[in-house]
């Protein structure tokens, strides 16, 4: 039980501290840098799972074709739903073709 509480604190602290402590004056200075944190973190989060899909180690990963499809549609339409639909359709096709 203590371990769970400790884990909860360990997970919450990095989330909470910046949001609560960062003050107005600090924000004004940091703001221009912080707007680049979002794409950097999103890129860092997504890239490893795309490069090495966890589902099928080794062999040809057909899932990766679906990422390419979603990427192209997202660039093209700049809309969430069509891109996701295309990507998921590609995942399903890939799963059927390559079980």
């Amino acid at each position, binding site marked *: 039980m203590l371990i769970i509480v400790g884990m909860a604190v360990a997970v919450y602290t990095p989330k909470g501290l*910046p*949001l609560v402590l960062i003050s107005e004056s600090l924000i004004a200075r940091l703001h221009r840098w*912080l707007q680049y944190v979002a794409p950097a973190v*999103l*890129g860092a989060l997504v890239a*490893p799972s795309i490069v090495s899909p966890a589902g099928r180690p080794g062999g040809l990963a057909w899932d990766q074709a679906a990422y390419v499809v979603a990427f192209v549609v997202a660039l093209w339409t700049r809309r969430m739903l069509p891109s996701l639909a295309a990507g998921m359709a590609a995942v399903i096709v890939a799963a059927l073709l390559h*079980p």
Partner: protein
Amino acid sequence: MVSDHGLWPSLLRAAAAPLYSGWQRATAKRADQLVPLGGARTLLRVSASPAAASAPRNVRDGFLAALTFFPSTLILGAIFGASTGAAGISPLAAIGMSAVVWSGAGQFAALPLWPEGGGVVILSALALSLRFSLITASMAPMLVDRPKWLRACLAYCVTDENYALAVTRQQGTLEPGYLFGSWIPLYAAWVIGTALGVLLGAQVPVEWVAPLKAVFPLVFLVLTVLLCTSIPLALVAVLGGVLSVVGAAYLPPGWNIVSAGCLASLIGLPLERLFRRPVRA
């Protein structure tokens, strides 16, 4: 993606109406007290006024947007729940952990480490959560005009998925209601999934899992593309991805994201200057 009609919105509105009025009061009060603030001024104005008018709408939008993640989070929770028995975590502790800790990566990392004792488990959870410091720090400018207690509560609601949804929804604004709304399905799916996994035991069919695993990267990829509205932003995202992949080979899990996020975001401002120069000349 968000429809104006349907069962969920009305249910949600009815269930949580008392909560919103308090929320609205908190946000509306602060809207008049805004201190002009250099570069962040316009940003704060924009984010403060519409929120007071449409908090329930924001909660509903967030809720519906995050439903995308519900099935895959549920399955992931079930896999976690089913694996806890073998790791020596009691059923009650497993469900309690999901309800309190609410961290996918942190909890999966705890499975092999559980016999090693609390210190290691807690440290690994901390290491895996460090990326949230970057995430919430980047959210802070958009929430700086909100009361502290609200920010403290929102911090608990933040995770990768709803962060990605929230920052791509509208450039430069972030509604507390939206974040809260998108937290509900994610939290519910994780806890329910864990409970299902614990109760049903080991057998989640593998064939279901492989396509569902693609949902997370897929959504993140699309959100990243949508977020990158300028060349510097896109270059920063690509660099973050490259550094993260390289870092994953050498650093403990979690650290690659923190270091890649830090390093890549630092080149944003120099890139911005570089790309602005030809326009001025």
